[in-house]
Structure formats: C-alpha cells, structure tokens
C-alpha cells in the first residue's frame, strides 16, 4: 500500500516538475526582459509485429516522447536552449533532460556552447534530435542503438555557413561515452552545404572508457553487452553523412565505422550504413525506401557480435508542416547466432508526429 502511494507520488512529482518548468518558461511576466519561447513536439504510433518463429502478431499503441523545447535570448550574443521530454516505457513515466546549453555567438557565425548537447557525429543527430516530425522514417537508424553517443555534456566550438560552400565545424570535449569526466571524449566534425538542401559531412569521435557499463549517453534501446564486460576500452567513431533534400528527391546516407580496442581481444571493426530515399509528390506525399545494415565483430566487447539488416518501404503524408503521418513496413533479419529470438520479424508502424509552434 505504502509502496503504491510512493510510486504514484513520484509520478505526480515528475509531472509537476515539467509543469513548473513550462509555467516558468512561458511566463512573459517573469521573464519580460528576454525573448523566451516554448515550443513542443511529440508522436504517437501503432505497431504491428509479426515474428516468424512464434507465428503470432503483436499489436500495440505507443505514446512516443512528448517534448518541450525552450529557447531564450540573453542579450545579443548569449542564448539558451533546453529540451525536456516525458516518455512512457514499461508502464512507467520517464522524464528526461535532453539538451540544456548556453551559447555565446562571439563573432560572426562562430559560437561557443556549454552544457548538454546532441553529439554532432552525423547529420541525423545534429539536425533531427528527438522530433519525430523531422525524421524521414519512423525511427532512428540501427547505429543509434549500438554505436552513436546521442548526448554529451561539455564544451563545443561551432562555426556554420562560412564561405561560399557554407562550411561548418564542431569541435568539442565532453564527458566520456559512459559519463566519466576524468577521461574526456573529443570530437571533430565538419560539413559543407554546396547547394540548397544538400549537406556533406564527416566526423571523428574518440572516447576512452575506463569501465565499460550501460551508463551511457545513448538511452535509445541499446543492445550493448556492457554488463558482461566491465573492463576498459578505446572507442572511436568515424562517420560520413550525405543528405540531399530537394523539392522532389530526398536522400540521406549515414555511414558509421565504430572501432573498439581492448587488451584482451584487440581491435574490433564494426560498421553500419543507413540509406533513405524518398520522392515528394506535390509536397504532401512522400513514398520512400530504407535499408539499414549493422555489423559488429565477434571480438567487440562493447556490443558483442551483431549482424542485423532492416529493409523497409514507407509513405509519409504531410497534413501541415506541423503534423504528418508515416506508414512503414519493414523486415528485420539477423544472423543465426543472434541471441534474441525476436530479431527476425516484420513490423508495420503507423506514426503520427507533430510540433506545437
């Protein structure tokens, strides 16, 4: 009885915390001096899964993340950006702080940022964040579940839209992949935008992990075997992104090479590649194809051996720029050694995503 009351109390407190944040940030009376804005986005979806081995359908309604997005100016050169979300997982409500950073635009298009940010390792993580309304497909690439450090806490130097090629750079030092501040991770990323709607970029990320564990900045359904290996490892990520979003044709390719090295099993080379191709019909209708491949070596002690492939077809309908619907059918396959029996399956998702602006 007491346990139930305590659980309910915690849930209410989480809601109250976010409600209070909303109230503070949206109160023009309290913050009349700054240009503060509160926006929001979220999603809801219905999934149908068919597992070949059990020959049964799983149906489920799911409420996606519901996020608040707060921006504010603190004079000409300083600004704040925050992103908070509520998600419903395993019967519990989870409140998360995704971004909270202060930016100093010290000269021209060059800035310094301090706080928690999305790690700009690739186009997806640098542009889409948690807003499903911008995702070209219903979910992130497979690499986000195993390789990509989604968030990082630290300091970043950023430049954007420099020169005729719209060159951009991000250089940052942050806590390690497991949140360890004594072994800072480093990142160097650059991109160019040679034409409207096109961006080509590459990045390098290094993190020394003193004790491998599941305390990481991923939090997106990672399948890593951190609990099995608690030793140290060197972790490197090399990414190449190509994005072209024209009025008709849309292409996004994300390539990731994740290299881990341990004293016991040596260097492990792991790869993933996500490809999305869509075609806009009168701006509102976008049929698309996707192919996502992920391979992790036998001697990789961070994630273990994985050989996963996802093919999908989908259709996006844009009701307004603030509301769209995606229908996606995909087939997952995995290698026979894969321990999860649910790995070989078909999935059909209808997702409604929206932004409150």
């Amino acid at each position, binding site marked *: 009885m007491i346990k139930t009351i305590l659980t309910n109390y915690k849930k209410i407190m989480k809601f109250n915390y976010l409600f209070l944040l909303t109230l503070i940030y949206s109160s023009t009376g309290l913050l009349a001096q700054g240009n503060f*804005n509160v*926006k929001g*986005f979220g999603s809801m979806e219905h999934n149908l899964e068919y597992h070949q081995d059990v020959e049964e359908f799983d149906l489920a309604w799911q409420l996606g993340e519901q996020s608040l*997005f707060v*921006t504010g*100016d603190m004079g*000409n*050169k300083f*600004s704040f*950006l925050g992103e908070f979300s509520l998600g419903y997982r395993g019967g519990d409500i989870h409140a998360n702080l995704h*971004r909270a*950073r202060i*930016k100093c*635009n010290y*000269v*021209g*298009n060059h*800035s310094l940022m301090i706080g928690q940010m999305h790690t700009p390792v690739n186009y997806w993580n*640098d*542009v*889409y*964040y948690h*807003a499903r*309304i*911008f995702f070209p497909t219903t979910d992130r690439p497979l690499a986000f579940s195993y390789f990509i450090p989604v968030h990082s806490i630290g300091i970043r130097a950023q430049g*954007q*839209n*420099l*020169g*005729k090629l*719209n060159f951009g750079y991000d250089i940052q030092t942050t806590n390690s992949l497991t949140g360890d501040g004594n072994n800072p991770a480093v990142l160097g990323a650059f991109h160019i935008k040679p034409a*409207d709607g096109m961006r080509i970029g590459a990045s390098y990320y290094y993190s020394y992990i003193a004790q491998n564990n599941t305390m990481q900045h991923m939090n997106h359904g990672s399948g890593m075997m951190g609990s099995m290996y608690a030793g140290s490892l060197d972790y490197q990520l090399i990414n190449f992104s190509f994005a072209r979003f024209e*009025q008709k044709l849309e292409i996004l390719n994300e390539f990731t090479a994740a290299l881990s090295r341990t004293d016991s099993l040596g260097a492990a080379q792991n790869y993933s590649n996500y490809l999305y191709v869509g075609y806009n019909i009168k*701006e509102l209708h976008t049929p698309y194809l996707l192919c996502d491949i992920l391979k992790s070596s036998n001697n990789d002690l961070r994630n273990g051996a994985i050989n996963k492939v996802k093919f999908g077809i989908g259709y996006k309908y*844009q009701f*307004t*720029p*603030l509301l769209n619907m995606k229908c996606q059918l995909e087939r997952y396959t995995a290698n026979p050694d894969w321990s999860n029996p649910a790995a070989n399956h078909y999935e059909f998702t209808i997702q409604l995503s929206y*932004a409150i*602006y």
Partner: protein
Amino acid sequence: MQYIKSSISVFVTVAFLLLINNSCFGQNYSSRIRICGNSIDEKSYTISDIKSILKGEKSLWKNGNRVIIVMRFNEDEKSQYLAKEIYNKSIQGVKKFWLGLVFSGRSSAPLFADSNEEALLMLAKYEGAIGVFVDCQEEIPADFKVSIIKSENEKSIR
C-alpha cells in the same frame, strides 16, 4: 541647331543618370519586394547576400547586433510570392524550413507579421532587424532603406 544640341545633351545626361542609378545606387529586390534594415552593417547588398541572410545563414552583424529576420508572412498571395522569390519554396515549404532550423538550435525563428504595418513596427523595435516586405505602400524611414546591387561581382558579406 542649338535646339538639337541641347536636346542631345539632355538625352545623354538622362541616359547617363539612369545608367548610374541602376548600376551604383542600387534598387529594390524586385518590383514587389523591398528590403529594410534597422542598425545593420551596410546600406546595400547583393541578391545572393540577402537570400543568404534571410535563410538564417548569418547570425551576428559586424556591429555586434543579432540578426533578427522580420517578415510579413501569412497564407496569402503576397506571401506565396515572397516564398517563391526568396526561398524558391511554397508557403508550407518555408514554414517547414524554419521549423527544422529552429528545432535544430542552429538559428533563431524569424518574427512573422500579418501586415506590412506590423512588420515595420517590429523592424523599428529591434536593432539588427532586417525586414522583407511585399507590395509595401507604407512610408519607410530613410534610415531603414536597403538597396540591392544587382551585380554578381560584388564581394560576399561572409
């Protein structure tokens, strides 16, 4: 004879002035679009510079003011014209463009006004504001006027 000479000299002078006016003194962005600025760096820009600024690619003026974009923008024909001329997109396309840029945290949202009068008030309120008007009939203060140099050889602002 004297009359013909005088006529020719007047004609040449007028033609010369017109030529100078077009090439040096600048003009509006187009026959319908006018660009204005409050405490921004220059009084004249090339079309590609203006497009770049209005796409959120410049965040701070050299004078230290933040770039604030002010647009008269809603669902009407004037906004459709603006969207096509500046962004080469539809009205929905422009909204989607800004939505993506703002949520990624790489640029601040423009100030959207329903009328030219409202946009002009916003422009006057914020130093560093650059405004884009379509079919503007209102009197624009001389300090706010920005002319467009239609020359591809003009040095880029970036």
